[in-house]
């Protein structure tokens, strides 16, 4: 059975994480939001890259406007990534990985 394994402490793992993070931050400017959200989620899950919360903040500062249907919040992307981070933290604890 095929199993995905990624040693995040290896040099290759570090290179992937660095490139992924650069791509994520560039993606905030040019990629569709779903690509950025997926990339951010992958970085969080595989590398626990909590710096993506800063990316959410960057997105909110660039594009954010109050959304009336969400009580006028202007930090929606940051909130999404904070909740994703908490979810990933809890999943990792539950899976003991």
């Amino acid at each position, binding site marked *: 059975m095929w199993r995905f394994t990624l040693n995040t402490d290896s040099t290759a793992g570090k290179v992937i994480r660095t490139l992924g993070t650069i791509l994520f931050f560039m993606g905030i400017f*040019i990629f569709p939001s779903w690509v950025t959200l997926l990339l951010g989620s992958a970085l969080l899950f595989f590398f626990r890259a909590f710096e993506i919360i800063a990316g959410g903040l960057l997105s909110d*500062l660039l594009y954010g406007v109050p959304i*009336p249907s969400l009580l006028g919040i202007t930090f929606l992307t940051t909130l999404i990534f904070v909740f994703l981070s908490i979810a990933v933290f809890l999943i990792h604890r539950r899976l003991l990985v």
Partner: protein
Amino acid sequence: MIYLQRTSRPTNPLTKVAIGAATVFIVGAILLQLFAPSFFPSVLHTLGLPLWRSNAAVGVSFSNFFGLLNSKRALILSNRDLKAKLEETQLRLTAQIALQDEYLKLKALFEGEGRKDAIIAAVLARPNVSVYDTLVIDAGTSEGVVAGDEVLVAENIMIGTVDHVFAHSAVVKLFSTPGESTLVEIGPQKIQTTAEGRGGGNFEARLPRGVEVAEGDSIIIPSIDPKLFAVVEKINVAPSDPFQVVLFKSPVNLFEVEYVEIYPKH
């Protein structure tokens, strides 16, 4: 039970300095954002402009990037150009039909007077780049843009208002932002109602069942100079509901719009 013993090793002084510096930085950033909310967005827009401009200059958005990689590249480009031309023509035609009467009346009143105060701006980022229903345009305070200015496409189709303005860029809040309410008039009877944004250029309005609305009816923003807002796409009537839900859509595809016109707020 065996418990993990606390280490007796002293903490590295460099770690303490780093934690202290990070704390000061974060607290400073929060205070700066609270007292000068436009500082960080302004800096970030300045940094982002070259990226957005290069992306716009390439003329290929990343959403359709993979479509261009295949062997039918020329065909796709040609098809896109033709579609854009057709769409623009349809938009102009729809706007003209909807506003013909008003135009004739206004022409009689203001013969020879036209609004020549428009600022043309290129769209740098469209709603699909963020989770918000916003556009980033390449005109700012230097070009005379002010927060609250009206944003139009094809001269007569109003899509939103300017929300934040920076030196050479601005963020446009679209009327279709979820929950955003706009006063509009529906159909030839000009029934006044409130349109609620549903994202991506889509809107919803609730009207009593007796009110006659048909698919294809134009929706305008009432003013001395009425602007086309949307076109009725679908009407949902549930047997148990005394209201009908009118779904309408902006005639402009906000995910492909390239240029906008900015007019000073009335």
